[in-house]
């Protein structure tokens, strides 16, 4: 017994230490930093209590970033989930060149986000970019997609959905493949329409996958900002400033590390709340075998 515990501890220790050093300790340190002022030159950090938190209310960009992130998440999560499911169903069927189509769908996932952003940067370029050349065929004039505050955020959403759907598709595809074929046979015998079968059998059976995919999509909606850095740097007029991008700006461009730490705590709180809701609400609906 004693030896078993010792062995177990020894086996867990490396992973636990890593987790402690790179996840738990930084989280605690951030929380502590958020209670102190930013040290600047000759002025050391002093304890300010909740002042950093009340200062957040004076940051108009933060509210803009929160609103942007809300819309960004609201659009990209359902869109990428729906698209990935559609793609998975389409390549699950028997069709010629299936492997090629699957690979094509998955390609965006393999590419680094920075490369993806640079490709899309070209697509969105006014006049000679892909989109403008395309709409130019119909006689429409130039559009400055990324430098117009009405289209910049939707442009970011398109990139995110394009990048993520292929990844989620793999999970849906795996789930569809593991679904016993006799279910479909029974459905056919009972005379269920394809839509009925999907709604009553496939979709409920996919629920655990959907839960996993949605949790990941939510995290990514707050975590992936590479394309913002490359394509718009948060502009124009903060139209594409997402929460994490704003934190980076405040922390590593303005060097207001205390304010950045405070906003990080806010971000962690939002993510924790979302994860909690997801597991309680969606988890109840998920049907595990």
């Amino acid at each position: 017994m004693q030896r078993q515990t010792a062995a177990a501890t020894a086996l867990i220790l490396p992973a636990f230490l890593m987790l402690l050093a790179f996840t738990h300790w930084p989280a605690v340190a951030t929380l502590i930093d958020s209670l102190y002022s930013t040290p600047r030159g000759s002025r050391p950090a002093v304890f300010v209590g909740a002042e950093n938190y009340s200062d957040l209310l004076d940051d108009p960009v933060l509210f803009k970033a929160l609103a942007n992130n809300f819309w960004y998440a609201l659009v990209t999560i359902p869109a990428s989930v729906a698209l990935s499911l559609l793609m998975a169903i389409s390549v699950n069927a028997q069709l010629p060149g299936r492997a090629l189509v699957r690979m094509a769908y998955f390609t965006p996932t393999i590419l680094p986000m920075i490369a993806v952003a640079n490709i899309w940067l070209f697509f969105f370029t006014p006049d000679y970019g892909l989109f403008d050349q395309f709409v130019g065929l119909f006689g429409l004039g130039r559009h400055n997609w990324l430098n117009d505050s009405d289209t910049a955020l939707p442009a970011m959403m398109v990139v995110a959905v394009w990048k993520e759907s292929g990844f989620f598709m793999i999970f849906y595809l795996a789930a569809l493949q593991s679904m016993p074929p006799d279910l479909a046979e029974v459905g056919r015998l009972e005379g269920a329409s394809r839509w009925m079968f999907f709604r009553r059998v496939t979709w409920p059976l996919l629920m655990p996958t959907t839960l996993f995919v949605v949790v990941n999509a939510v995290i990514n909606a707050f975590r992936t900002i590479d394309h913002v850095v490359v394509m718009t740097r948060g502009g124009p007029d903060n139209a594409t400033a997402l929460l994490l991008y704003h934190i980076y700006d405040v922390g590593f461009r303005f060097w207001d590390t205390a304010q950045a730490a405070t906003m990080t705590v806010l971000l962690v709180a939002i993510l924790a709340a979302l994860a909690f809701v997801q597991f309680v609400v969606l988890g109840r609906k998920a049907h595990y075998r």
Partner: protein
Amino acid sequence: MQMTRRVLLASTATGAATLAMPTISRAADQTSVEFYFPVAIGGPVTKIMDGIVADFTKENPDIALKAVYAGSYNDTLTKAVTATKSGQGPQLAVLLSTDAYSLVDDDLVLPFDNTAEDKAWLGGFFPAFMANGQINDRVWGVPFQRSTIVLYYNKDAFKEAGLDPEKAPATWEEHAAFAEKLTKREGDRVTRWGIQIPGSGFSYWLLQAMVAEAGGTMMSDNGTKVHFTDPAMVSALQYWVDLSAKHHAHPPGIVDWGTTPRDFLEGRAAMIWHTTGNLTNIKTNAKFPFGVAMLPANKRRGSPTGGGNFYMFKSASPAQRTASLRFLKWVTSPERAAAWGVATGYVATRPDAWATQTMKDYVAGFPAAAVARDQLAFAVPEFSTHDNQRVTQALDDQLDAAMLGKKTPEAALAEAQAAAERILKPFRRG
């Protein structure tokens, strides 16, 4: 006998040691100096930089110089500051001349004007390039890759529009009128814009040119106050917005900094305002005759300086400080400054560099290169305050809104002023 032998042995050993000494001590005395540099223009800058390091090392074998490419200006600042705060920083870095306040406020850099000799050396630069690096009567930046804004224009387009290709617009009125004439339309579509002034990334910088031309200044000398609501500032922004809204000669909305030189090279823009740092790029790639001119005047001529200075970090040891200074004096010497300017298009930072044969030959073959130097007489220091990045961002956000037509110039600038006041308040308490 025994004695003699021992003495002999000992002396041989000493002799050997003495012989070995110089090589050993040279390796030990070699001072290592590392500097971070950004690349902000087209062209093989890293290769040029490697050549500079190789030449310097050949002439100064006692200094181990290492140049580290660190990305954009912002990346370089982030990397240099992060590395310095963790004790691994470089001794030198090329950073924006406008980052001086932040670096001094954070107590990260050293002043350069310590001895009479150093002061004499620093006195040899164009005063316009020194201004941004002077804070609290000390010098914190050595001008290196410096630039200013000039007007590039397509001479073929001028001819096509019935304008004299040797006469660039001299005033705001001319500039707007030329731009209208140069704009070419096919039905509703514009195939060539008369003028493009980029408004992404550096919009405050381009606006500052217009503010200077309108006779205004954007900030106080000590970097604690901004004058965003001054009439000169409002009229400058109004002029920029009007080029598109009233004259329909400038693309609506925000023009991208990065694609503007390409628009010019592809003939989609007849005139552009851009940094002299792009001179070599445009000269190499333009398939049509082009002109370079000073920016047009309103109440006066004017253009802000820009680009990067060398900064020395506090973490440098005394030996490294001496070695760093030797490198800086070497790299800013007339011949070197001239060669760097010719290779990149940056404005050579010292009058004596312009007197070298290298530079004279270059200007003789390419007179446009001298426009930036002549414009220095009207140059103003680049916009810079305490907590510079934050104030600049607050201004740029509002300029975006004004150019997109979401706010009037007055309203946008009033908001930028209020934001800047909030940020600068702590620095005014002293």
